[in-house]
């Protein structure tokens, strides 16, 4: 199958998948106890007030009708308006997207070289002291929960040493104007994926470095670096790339802990709030975004995997 038609089919399937994501999320939010009216009422759950709210928010209409209306709007590029605030959902997404994208982008930009670099380094010295050091440290960091790591980093670098701001509070969306505020969140975000990525890279690389084709490239004095990155890595990269896609997805879809800890109002926060408020249109809008992001990332990862196993189509 040619890559072109592969992509086309997958994108088509992707549209269906996104629809499925939206449906799933809609069904799940509907299944949650309470609705926007209940959530709005909060600790004053006066039944009459809830009923009035329900009517005002048109929540008394059947679920399928609301979904259909929303879907019809989507076809015109209209993601609807928030139940809670009446503002357009696109504004929620736009506001949340900036910080999230920035964080995710920065993290990925560091993650890829770091994860692959450490993995390759560990694999080169597999069984040696360096490998053990890298593995143990990254695993230990991985096993420390994010909040603990975050608190630790903040305490040391922001509060004790005062090198960096402890949170991004008050910086609004203008995070780029305060690069120092991004250092700690990015570090915390990096901590876990670096480990998972480097472990997968290491695993693949240990096998790839022991493979005869690597030895063959060495025989001809191909520079070690080139061998590592061009000859060994392709044999090891497919799972790592999948992991990377998952990480990117995770970064985009909800790095809730980091957002909360460092007061960065990204998409994760928007999602949490929207779910708490049962703000179905916002949740739906996010589901569309997450659906599309996931589809695209997975497709990307699959294309790489596809490319790395060219024999797959030909083998019996």
């Amino acid at each position, binding site marked *: 199958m040619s890559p072109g038609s592969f992509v086309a089919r997958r994108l088509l399937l992707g549209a269906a998948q996104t629809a499925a994501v939206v449906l799933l999320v809609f069904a799940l939010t509907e299944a*949650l*106890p*309470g609705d926007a009216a*209940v*959530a*709005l*009422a*909060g*600790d*004053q*759950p*006066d*039944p*009459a*007030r*809830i009923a*009035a*709210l329900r009517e*005002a928010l048109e929540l008394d209409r059947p679920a399928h009708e609301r979904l259909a209306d929303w879907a019809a709007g989507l076809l015109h590029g209209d993601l609807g308006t*928030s139940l*809670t*605030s009446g*503002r357009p959902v696109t*504004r*929620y997404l736009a*506001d*949340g997207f900036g910080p999230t994208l920035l964080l995710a982008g920065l993290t990925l930009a560091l993650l890829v070289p770091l994860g692959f670099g450490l993995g390759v380094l560990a694999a080169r010295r597999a069984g040696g002291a360096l490998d053990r050091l890298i593995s143990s440290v990254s695993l230990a960091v991985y096993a420390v929960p994010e*909040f603990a790591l975050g*608190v630790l980093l*903040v305490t040391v670098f*922001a*509060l004790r040493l*005062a090198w960096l*701001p*402890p*949170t991004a*509070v*008050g910086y*609004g*969306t203008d995070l780029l104007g305060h690069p120092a505020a991004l250092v700690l969140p990015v570090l915390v975000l990096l901590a876990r994926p670096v480990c998972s990525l480097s472990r997968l890279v290491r695993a693949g690389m240990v096998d790839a470095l022991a493979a005869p084709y690597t030895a063959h490239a060495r025989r001809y004095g191909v520079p070690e670096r080139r061998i590592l990155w061009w000859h060994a890595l392709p044999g090891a990269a497919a799972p790592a790339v999948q992991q990377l896609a998952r990480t990117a997805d995770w970064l985009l879809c909800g790095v809730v802990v980091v957002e*909360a*800890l*460092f*007061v960065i*109002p990204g998409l994760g*926060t*928007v999602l*949490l*709030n*929207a*779910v*708490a*408020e*049962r*703000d179905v249109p*916002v949740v739906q809008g996010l589901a569309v975004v997450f659906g599309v992001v996931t589809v695209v990332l997975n497709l990307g990862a699959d294309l790489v995997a596809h490319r790395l196993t060219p024999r797959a189509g030909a083998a019996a």
Partner: protein
Amino acid sequence: DSSGDTDPKNTRRGGRLRAAFAGGGASETLDPHKANLFADAARAKALYDKLADFGADLSAQPRLAEKWEPNKTLDRWQVTLRQADFHDGKPVTARDVLHSYRRIADPKQAFRARASLEPVDLDASRAVGDRTVEFVLKRPTAEFPNVLAAFGAYIVPEGADDFDRRPVGSGPFRFVSFAPGRSALFRRFDDYWEGAPHLDELEIVVANEESARVNALLGGQVEYAHELNPTTARAHQGRGQIEMVRLRGSAMQAFCMKTDRPPFDDKRVREAFFLIADRKELVDGALSGAGQIGNDLFGMGYEYYADSLPQRTQDLDRARALLKKAGAEKLRVTLDTSAVAAGFTEAAGIFRDQAAKAGVTVDVRMGSKDSYWSDILDSGTLCCYRSGAMPIEAHISQRLLTDSTTNATHWRHADFDALYRQAQSTRDKTERAALYERMQRRLYAEGGFLIWGFADWIIGTVKNVKGVEANAPANTLDWARFDKVWLA
């Protein structure tokens, strides 16, 4: 001590104070009538005024209202406004008041304060001149000023409906900018009727995570952090880095028994439960010690509080005997809880262990925090409960009358209702106090609220923040009041 120092000689003008609150995300608005969260209330308080507000003992204090005067039958109140201006320079008038109240009472909007305004017949009420409003009530209401001070009953200019763009109020600060879920920036309103604030600017920023608020405070990113953990307070108390302000009696902590459902329809079982609770252990464990133990009565320290009643203590033997008498040995109940408020899950766990000692099996069930309040209103038999500060009268009217909208204990007794009505038609305060005491005795003996404690509200400030009032339970006038605060 940062609090209480309001001597005008020492105050300093100027500066920007950044205050961190837990917030509501991107859905936040500056519509004061939509206010729900503490952050909303703090922002509303900066921009707007109410006619009255609560003092530290939860009695109504005049604000925009200069004075109020009822008729004999207590069902018609004349409220005179003081001379005050909105930020756009227009004076606050009776028409603005009526507009605001009508907006709140609009059945289509279902604002939170609507329930509080229920006694008022707004169609019959009218403006008597520019600065006088005559409120016509549906029934005698001795405690009508409490209505004027109700949560969310803010006065906005006539016709105001869009609060996203340049909202105008009569509060101590005027609008500069607002990013929902992030920050709201206000500037001093020099013509504030009570005198201009000391601060040049006030920024209310949102940080939902407690540790983020603490870190921002410690890192000098904010000067004021609202709602800190007792544990955090312990960690930083007396370290000299930051100041801790404890607002005593801010949140009543309780277990709530449905008095019309087995096993709690038997008052012996309710009493047994009162006796099972080791309140000290609950306060120490669930509130980390940051609070006072309760005596199954709402409003400790508030006006009309029946403090003559003896403090209840744990008495497992008596509890067991009572249960036996009620035929409820080997009792098994489900305790609903949720992470909706600090200390809930902890209290539930602790109470479960305490009950076990009296032979009662308590199954703790975690519920969704988003719909918790509505869920517990009618389902289950036993749940965790909490209430912010409000006058005892409001507590009774909202929660303990047959027609109360949020009667979580299902306490429905005609004689009790009658007592309440009688109190509302009683002009004389001491007589009223006696009636309130009777009601409270009844609740103490057989009510559905097992009120085991009152949590402190903890605020952290940096050292140079002065004028933060400590004697101000959350939601009262002096709580989150930034016009009296200055930066030394």
